[in-house]
């Protein structure tokens, strides 16, 4: 993969080859497929029943139906989107296949695009059944959100890709010793993204940090929609602008870490 040739002729053929590689991998292991479905289903069932219980005992939640379960679904889009991206990347590290790819005509941008597409595929396998469970068990139809759902989804998936690109670069540079970052970094963002509570709950100084994260705008936007029936386009546009910056920055960081990996000779080893 050449850094210099980054902008020269992206090949859909090579991106297709990588997607085919991950598709073969998914189909080769039913436990992996099952795992994609298992956790999202477990999440929505647990939080769905909790929401039912709270709604029966608290006026606010009875009025703001769906905020918890909606937050769970949107959080899973963010978290599973990043995992879908990063796990496909980790598969190459686990398989010691990265050297083969780096030596092939595949370019970094093509590699990252294929990982993005795979994150969408993995997300669809996990989250669509989750939304159907929410509909049939708890009568929460996330698709009824309509156009705002597209805005929420796009902003969350862009953030998940930024985080995925950045942590993949860290693993590329530091080997599998950095693998735990893949699984934990998003949980570090969770308290500041205000998934289950409004930003106003945070201390004022922490609110400034929270507003630097695009997911914060999405979860605030979701609450505004479900509680006040207002779609806050201003929040979505702000999130989109920050996401654009994050995507560019994460791609730059990935290239810098790839170059550093080449300097250190860690592309061939990739170990701990």
């Amino acid at each position: 993969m050449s850094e210099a040739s980054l902008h020269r002729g992206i090949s859909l053929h090579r991106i297709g080859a990588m997607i085919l590689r991950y598709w073969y991998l998914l189909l080769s292991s039913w436990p992996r497929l099952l795992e994609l479905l298992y956790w999202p289903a477990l999440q929505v069932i647990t939080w769905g029943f909790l929401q039912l219980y709270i709604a029966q005992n608290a006026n606010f939640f009875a009025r703001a139906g769906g905020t918890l379960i909606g937050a769970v679904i949107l959080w899973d889009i963010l978290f599973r989107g990043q995992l879908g991206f990063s796990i496909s990347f980790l598969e190459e590290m686990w398989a010691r296949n990265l050297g083969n790819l780096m030596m092939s005509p595949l370019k970094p941008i093509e590699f990252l695009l294929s990982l993005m597409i795979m994150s969408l595929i993995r997300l669809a396998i996990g989250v669509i059944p989750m939304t159907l469970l929410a509909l049939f068990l708890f009568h929460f139809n996330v698709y009824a959100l309509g156009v705002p759902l597209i805005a929420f989804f796009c902003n969350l998936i862009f953030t998940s890709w930024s985080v995925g690109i950045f942590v993949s670069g860290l693993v590329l540079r530091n080997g599998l010793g950095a693998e735990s970052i893949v699984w934990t970094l998003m949980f570090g963002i969770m308290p500041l993204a205000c998934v289950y509570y409004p930003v106003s709950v945070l201390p004022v100084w922490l609110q400034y940090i929270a507003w630097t994260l695009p997911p914060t705008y999405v979860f605030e936007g979701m609450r505004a929609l479900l509680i006040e029936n207002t779609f806050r386009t201003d929040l979505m546009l702000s999130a989109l602008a920050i996401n654009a910056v994050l995507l560019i920055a994460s791609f730059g960081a990935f290239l810098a870490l790839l170059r550093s990996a080449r300097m250190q000779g860690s592309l061939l080893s990739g170990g701990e």
Partner: protein
Amino acid sequence: MTENDQGSSWPTVADRSLSAAIAVDHLVKVYKQTRAIDDISFSLPRGSITGLLGGNGAGKTTTIATIMGLVLPTSGRVQVLGHRMPEDSASVLGRMNFESPYVDMPMRLTVRQNLTVFGKLYAVKNLSDRIAELACDLDLTEFIDRANGKLSAGQKTRVALAKALINQPELLLLDEPTASLDPDTADWVRGHLERYRKANNATILLASHNMLEVERLCDRVIIMKRGRIEDDDTPEAIMARYNRTTLEEVFLDVARGRVNGAQEAAR
């Protein structure tokens, strides 16, 4: 793209490197305190098979990885098939390939799936025909629909070789191509490499610890020690210079520092 780029002037090897498959000029690679490659230069003509010999830590793998663009040099230049690496790698990566014990083929994919994916990455035309041809040549047919992880070491090596040949490369870089193979399979692989080189006028650079392999396959040998080139000639000339009958004896002389004044002068 080097850590200490010395500008655009590289006239001394420019003409040579246009016709050479590989041209390495004053290559240095330093990892923290270790000089893995210490100012080496060589040029390989197209259609040649060259053996890179040396003990563990001699710098063979780093040299090959730098030629492939997987490692950035600290200083010096590498040109492959007339293009500078890694700056212009997009122009050559489709025309070269490699096999190394440091990388594996994905274990969960079948042999056919692996070859399909890599064939598509290399934009191989008539891919199914090419896979069938390789399966026949390398005797993969019996297990072509078996997962790579379920193959024996010998079968995996043949699959890795099939991947390395999928794009009919003009340049093949091989790091220990017969390591961990039984003598029969190793001999069979050597025979196939010889046939491939003759049929395609391909250039092959192979790093090996197997002296018999190098004697049989290579028309030139580069001996490395502690990141430097200790000797560089035909196997026959090197054996004559060291007054030895096998490359293994030469290897031991170099590894143990038994180099006399005449050989120093020859170097």
